[in-house]
C-alpha cells in the first residue's frame, strides 16, 4: 500500500536511480535522494528552528529536553556526545546541569572545611573555579553545516564556551574512536537518519563500556481520541505555522509525515536491543507524543 503513491510508481518505473527505495515523509525516494532532501530541509529551517520548535510545541519541547537531562543525571566529569545536536539545546542543558551539580559539590566541600583560614578557603575556591564543569565535556555532532552554524552563534550569544566542541559528522558514520563517550544522546534527530540501524551501531561503538544511550524522539500515541487530535493538530496547524513563521510549508509537512513513519516505541526498543544494548527501556512523555529510549553498553 505504501508504494502505491503516484510519485513512487513514477520513480519505480524510472527504476534507474541507484539504491533501495525509502520514505521521505510520505514520498518514496532512494537513499541518496532522502539524505539530500533532509539536508535541504534542515538547511532551510536552521535559522528559524528554535522559533518553530517553540511555536509548534508551545514551548513544551523545552520541558521534554529538561526531562531528558534529569534522566541522564550526569555527574561532573562526564563526557557526552550529542548527535544531531544542531542548535545546541541538549549541550547547553548538559553544561548547566553539571555546572550546578559542581557548585553544589563545592558548597558541600566548603561546609566541611569550617576550620580553614580565609586564605585556605580562598585558595581552594580558586582551584576549583577553573574547573567549574569538573572536566565534563560535550561534543555536539551534526551532519548539517547550517544547523551547526546556528548552534555556535547561540553558544557565543549565551556565553557557552568551556567544555563544548562542535563537530561536523554523520550519525551513520561517526568521526570518533571506539569506546570514547560516557553518554550518547540523540534528541529529535534519529528520525531524520536514513539508516537508523547504522546510527545505533555507531552509538554502540563510540560508547565506553558502561556507557548510556539516550534517544528523545517523537513516537506513537496509542490513545485513539488523543491520536486523532494530535493528527489534526499536526497536519492542519503545523504546516501552516511553517508557512507563516518560516515561509516554508514543505519542510514542516515533511516533519509531521516523518513522525508518522518513524517506528513506534516497541519497535525502536527492539532495534536498540539488536545492536547490543542492554536494559533497554522507554518512557512515554505526553501519552507517547514523545518517548525517551535508554540503553546501556556493557
Amino acid at each position, binding site marked *: 500500500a*505504501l508504494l502505491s503513491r503516484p510519485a513512487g510508481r513514477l520513480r519505480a518505473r524510472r527504476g534507474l536511480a541507484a539504491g533501495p527505495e525509502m520514505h521521505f515523509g510520505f514520498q518514496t525516494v532512494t537513499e541518496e535522494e532522502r539524505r539530500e532532501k533532509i539536508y535541504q530541509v534542515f538547511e532551510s529551517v536552521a535559522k528559524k528552528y528554535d522559533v518553530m520548535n517553540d511555536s509548534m510545541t508551545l514551548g513544551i519541547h523545552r520541558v521534554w529536553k529538561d526531562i531528558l537531562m534529569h534522566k541522564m543525571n550526569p555527574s561532573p566529569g562526564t563526557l557526552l556526545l550529542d548527535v544531531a545536536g544542531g542548535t545546541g539545546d541538549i549541550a547547553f542543558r548538559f553544561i548547566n546541569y553539571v555546572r550546578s551539580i559542581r557548585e553544589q559539590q563545592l558548597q558541600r566541600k566548603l561546609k566541611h572545611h569550617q576550620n580553614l583560614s580565609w586564605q585556605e578557603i580562598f585558595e581552594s575556591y580558586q582551584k576549583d573555579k577553573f574547573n567549574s564543569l569538573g572536566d565534563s565535556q560535550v561534543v555536539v555532532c551534526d551532519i548539517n553545516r547550517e544547523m551547526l552554524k546556528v548552534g555556535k552563534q547561540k553558544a557565543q550569544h549565551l556565553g557557552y564556551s568551556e567544555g563544548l566542541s562542535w563537530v561536523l559528522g554523520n550519525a551513520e558514520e561517526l568521526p570518533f574512536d571506539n569506546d570514547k563517550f560516557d553518554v550518547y544522546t540523540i534528541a529529535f534527530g534519529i528520525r531524520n537518519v536514513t539508516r537508523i540501524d547504522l546510527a545505533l551501531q555507531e552509538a554502540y561503538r563510540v560508547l565506553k563500556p558502561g556507557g548510556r544511550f539516550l534517544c528523545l524522539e517523537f513516537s506513537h500515541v496509542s490513545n485513539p481520541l488523543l491520536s486523532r487530535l494530535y493528527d489534526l493538530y499536526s497536519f492542519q496547524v503545523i504546516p501552516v505555522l511553517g508557512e507563516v513563521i518560516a515561509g516554508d510549508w514543505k519542510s514542516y509537512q515533511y516533519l509531521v509525515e516523518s513522525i508518522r513513519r518513524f517506528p513506534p516505541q516497541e519497535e525502536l526498543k527492539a532495534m536498540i536491543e539488536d545492536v547490543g544494548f542492554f536494559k533497554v527501556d522507554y518512557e512515554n512523555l505526553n501519552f507517547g507524543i514523545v518517548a525517551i529510549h535508554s540503553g546501556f553498553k556493557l
Partner: protein
Amino acid sequence: EEEEEEEEEGWHQLYPGHIPTSLLQKALLAAGSAVMALYDPYRHDMVAVLGETTGCLALPNLRDKMKNHPEGYHILQERPRIRLSTVDMARLQGLPDGSLGREYVRFLEDNKVSPDTRMPPKFVDDEELAYVIQRYREVHDLMHTLLGMPTNMLGEVVVKWFEAVQTGLPMCVLGAAFGPVRLSTRKLQVLATELVPWAIRSGLNASCVLNVYYEQRWEQPVESLREELGIFPPP
C-alpha cells in the same frame, strides 16, 4: 501506521508549486498571514498567501470577466507571462517616451524593481484561477505605470485602493485599509483628500484592467491607454 488519503495532499498537485490545502488550513493561513503581514511588512510572501487564501470569490469573478471579454479571453487562452525572460526590455527601452513600454521600463528602473520577484501561487486550488492571480501580480507594476504611482508606501496604498475597487480581492481591500497605518499625517491627508478619491473614481470608471493584453500594446501611449480604459489623469 498508514495515513488516510486526505493527508496525502501532495498527490493532487494541479500546477507546479501547488500545495493543496483543506478549508481549515486555508482559514488558518488567512488569519496567520494577515497577522504576519501586518507585523512584518517585509513579508511579501504573506501578502501573497493572504491573497490566495481569501480570493475564492473574487478570483472566479475576475476569471469570468476575462472570459466574457475578447481581449481577456485571448489572455486566458495564451497565458502570457511578464518576466524578464519573456519581455524584451531592450526593445521597450527604445520605444518613444510616453509609450507604455518606455514608461514601464522607466518605472522599473526608477524604483529598482523587477517583474521576476512576483510570488508564484501555491494555495489556489484551480489551475486557471492560479493563472488569474499570477496575471494580477504581474500586471501590478503596469498598474503603477498607468497610475503614475511610485513604489513607496504611499504609492502602494493608492494602487491598492485602485486594485481593491477593480478586483474585489479581499487582500487588496485589507491592504488599502491597513496600509495607511504606517503613513505620516501629512501623507495621510494627501491620501485622503486627493489620491484615494481619484483612485476609487478611476477604479470604478475603468474597465477591467486584466482584460488588457499589455504585451501587444507596448507602443501605445500611456495617456491613450488610460483614456481607453477610463482611468482619470493622476492628480
